[in-house]
């Protein structure tokens, strides 16, 4: 059972899921990696609203995963142009949308070692709408230049690159990415956050409109669906997330 909440209140995770819901509107197939509970929330909500469209692949799910050709199928499918959106993060992300999932410091003797690049060095190139997602918005994570390029934000002419980043979503704001200019542009500020704060906590230079709009909150209908319909589905793959964010705990282990 979702825990009752004060009317109209909305957690950060719910706001961000609503942001992503807009970013994946109208697509045919949205794939979500193993450690992306908020994108998974948005994708499952989109599928519920679309009555079965888009196709949603949650990679570490057995139930919400229609792949039957093993772990390679996501990558083959993306190579065929059949994955319209994917989500990536980074230990560091820089202003050119380069992402670093490997290490801070010298590669040969790093200060901090991250898990590794996962599928980023491929999917970032071939999936048309890659949404970067990094909850911790700080000068530690959003840097001027990454220490290691797991995957570059843009590629020079001649390099096969049908895909790339379209946005960066953080706990403070949403950036859009301009592939021609190779730069981020501030799109909206989340409720309660300010431009000054974002400037203070961002290690890279970015463009912005004269007046930055506020990130719209999720509608009550969408909030109800996240809490009532999506949370139980999420619990299969993200039990801790479903419990912490939506107060949903599985009654039985299947």
């Amino acid at each position, binding site marked *: 059972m979702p825990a009752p909440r004060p009317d109209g209140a909305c957690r950060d995770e719910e706001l961000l899921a609503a942001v992503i819901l807009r970013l994946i509107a109208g697509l045919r197939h949205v794939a979500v990696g*193993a*450690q992306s509970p908020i994108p998974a929330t948005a994708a499952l909500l989109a599928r519920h609203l679309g009555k079965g469209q888009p196709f949603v692949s949650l990679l*570490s799910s*057995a139930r919400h995963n229609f*792949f*039957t*050709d*093993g*772990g*390679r*199928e996501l*990558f083959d499918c993306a*190579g065929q142009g059949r994955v319209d959106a994917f989500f990536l993060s980074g230990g560091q992300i820089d202003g050119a949308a380069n992402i670093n*999932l*490997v*290490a801070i410091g010298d*590669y*040969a*003797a*790093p*200060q*901090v*070692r*991250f*898990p*590794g*690049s*996962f*599928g*980023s*060095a*491929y*999917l*970032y*190139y*071939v999936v048309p709408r890659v949404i970067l997602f990094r909850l911790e918005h700080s000068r530690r994570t959003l840097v001027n230049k990454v220490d*290691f*390029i*797991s*995957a*570059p934000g843009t*590629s*020079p002419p*001649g*390099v*096969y690159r049908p895909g790339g980043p379209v946005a960066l979503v953080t706990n403070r704001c949403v950036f859009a990415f301009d592939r021609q200019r190779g730069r981020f542009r501030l799109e909206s500020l989340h409720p309660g956050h300010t431009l000054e704060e974002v400037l203070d906590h961002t290690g890279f230079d970015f463009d912005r409109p004269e007046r930055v709009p506020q990130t719209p909150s999720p509608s009550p209908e969408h909030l109800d669906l996240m809490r009532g319909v999506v949370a139980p589905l999420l619990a299969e793959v*993200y*039990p*801790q*997330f479903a419990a912490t964010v939506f107060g949903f705990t599985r009654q039985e*282990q*299947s």
Partner: protein
Amino acid sequence: MSAIFRSLDEALAGIGDGAMLVVPPEYGGVAMEATRALIRRGLRDLHLVTLPASSLQADLLIGAGAVATIETSAVSLGEFGPAPRFAAAVTSGKIRIKDATCPAIHAALQAAEKGVPFMPLRGLVGSDLVARRPDWRVIDNPFAARDPIVLLPAIRPDVALFHAPMADRNGNVWIGRRRELATMAHAAAKTVVTVERIHDGDLLATEASAAGVLPALYVEAVAAAPRGAWPLPLAGEYPRDEAHCAEYARLAATEEGFRRYLDRYVYARAAA
């Protein structure tokens, strides 16, 4: 019953010090009971290949000192945080790491599966991964003008090791839709499998059951190991043991804690 059925320790005898060992991801059927047995045996100097990423299995093997080189696209405990022994070993230079990306490991094993020396892969161009992998080549696509593309050399492991729900008495192994397990087995010289149970019938007898089978031709040894993926999940069988994985993450955060974990869950189980 086929001669490929062995006790767990006998089945693992073919995995020697210095072997190149390929293992599946957390959701693909990880032979954890076998992994604990290998650590008890004191296995050393593994070249561990994860297809494509790993979690507890790689962290445990690394923490126990069994790994010399790891080729991986990521090692992480997922919801339970970073893989502490992996991170410690890499930052301290105790293991050599060959950083890859998921489809590169899939493709390099498919090259071995197909008996070709390399496979091409899109993406990668301009990534620091390529800069750090002198064994990868960037060539000009011979079918187009000025189109750089990466070639990956085949990965041919000595042994593939995984855990599956069942094998039949002929040694055919049920892998369901985890087709990467077939690729692993095709690519490796030998394949060792642990299973929940022995199926008393022929999995190849009907089209329906044959579809999810790795044929015995590719299998060197099978050992029964009930709940052999524990504490990791096995699709269609049991979920991850969340409490245990949280305990591992907590203990393995320090070298001393990790030693306590080994004593309690790896060495003690042999004595029990």
